[in-house]
């Protein structure tokens, strides 16, 4: 089956390291080589210390839900089959925030609920990092 949802430009140099790590099941963020602050998505300079040096590093795949929204309408036809689907802002254990899908069971879906990263192979070149609820 072909993948009908929007896809990112996984080859774009700014974000390519993130997408290629996702294919290997690793969650990453950019980290300032000077002050060690994390940032995501990518920025050309560290907003904490204004130094330019940065590297992509692996970060925690455990997190909690800051908030979530449940789409009952597909604004893109590719999401129609998934309705209703959940998008959440997740803060991981390193304090990095990601906006992504909540997949699997919705039992216990709530602000503050614990989640763990999961990786969905969407196409040959694109793997989507998403989240699943962790039973307490």
């Amino acid at each position: 089956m072909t993948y009908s949802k929007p896809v990112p430009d996984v080859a774009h140099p700014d974000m390519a390291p993130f997408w290629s790590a996702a294919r290997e099941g690793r969650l990453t963020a950019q980290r300032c080589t000077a002050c060690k602050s994390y940032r995501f998505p990518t920025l050309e300079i560290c907003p904490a210390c204004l130094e330019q040096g940065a590297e992509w590093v692996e970060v925690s795949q455990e997190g909690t839900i800051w908030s979530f929204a449940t789409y009952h309408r597909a604004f893109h036809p590719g999401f129609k089959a998934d309705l209703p689907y959940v998008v959440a802002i997740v803060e991981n254990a390193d304090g990095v925030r990601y906006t992504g899908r909540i997949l699997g069971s919705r039992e216990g879906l709530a602000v503050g609920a614990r989640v763990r990263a999961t990786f969905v192979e969407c196409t040959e070149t694109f793997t989507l990092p998403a989240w699943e609820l962790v039973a307490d």
Partner: protein
Amino acid sequence: MDSDIRGKVAIVGIGHTAQGELPGQSPELNSVLAIKEAMRDAGIDRSALDGLITCKSVQGTNIDWQVGPLLGINPRYAQTLDYGTCNFSMHLAVQAIVTGMADTVALCYGANARTMKFPFGASAPTLAGVSGLMHVGGPAALALQRYKSLYGMTDEEFGWIAVGAREWARRNPVALFRDPMSMDDYLAMEYLIEPLRRPDLTMISDGGVSLILTSAERAADFPNKPIYILGMSEASQIRGEFTPDYLDREFLGLASQQIWNSTGMSQSDIDLLYVQDPTAFWVLQMIEHFGFAPRGEGGKWLAQGHTLPGGSLPLNTNGGQLSECYMWGWMHIVEAVRQLRGAAGPERQVQDAEIAMYLSTQTWFKGGASIIATHKG
């Protein structure tokens, strides 16, 4: 340094096109048609304008040098703002007038995004976008869900924003959404982006809108009762999503403090409240950030009926963006001026209203507040 702008500038003209679908009309044409109406209202012709401040359309057009050829003038002062909502344009006009850079300034906004079918639901090729976060309703739903979780507001309490907007719109012939909508009707509607329903989100529409501002001295010569600007404030959160908890829009607290401190006024001085409302949740946040209701109690406060027809603080008496039209909030100021002139018509005129406040934001990037009145303060 004298930074008090109180009563130094007045709104002397308001104008707008029909709202809804205006096929074949560019944002620039809609702007110029609105300026024509505003000039007619102000009793002036183009020779009286020495300033023009345009506001970019959603597509990034409607720049001053794109409006200029249609308007047919080369005013001394011309600027374009990327930020809409009228507050920012009005503040810039006040600054231009009090510094002598212009005497009489036309502000305008024009949109054709409805008939051009602008893809508001499109997603950016980011992690958030490819995960399905689309439409401004997405972030607003995230913010609302968190608020509900922290403070326990019910759907019914929240629903008074959309139901109230419709109550007012039913009294406004310009409004696009005038069918009755009771609380039961609202609660019976399915979620669009849960916890938001369709009436909690604005519908895009075409149109143009314009205001004309001049100095208080000149304003006395205009045919309509001048509406004076008593206070203004702004605050930004231009770091956007890189600001922790950016959807809570805490930066609005700075704009709130500044306008109350600089005017010496308080919430109880406000007769009419206008809040730009692309989403109903932004209204709730504004009501709390500007101190009209305590934090976490905005829903309960709304359910007490203050903002409905006959209430003590009428809110968005035009129906707002939720029920009147899109226009990025600009029509709120047009309505505020109409009300303060006493010219809003028998169905929705609020008696003895002297002071109105307008609050608006560019999503989570920037916020503005203005207080306008029938007197110089």
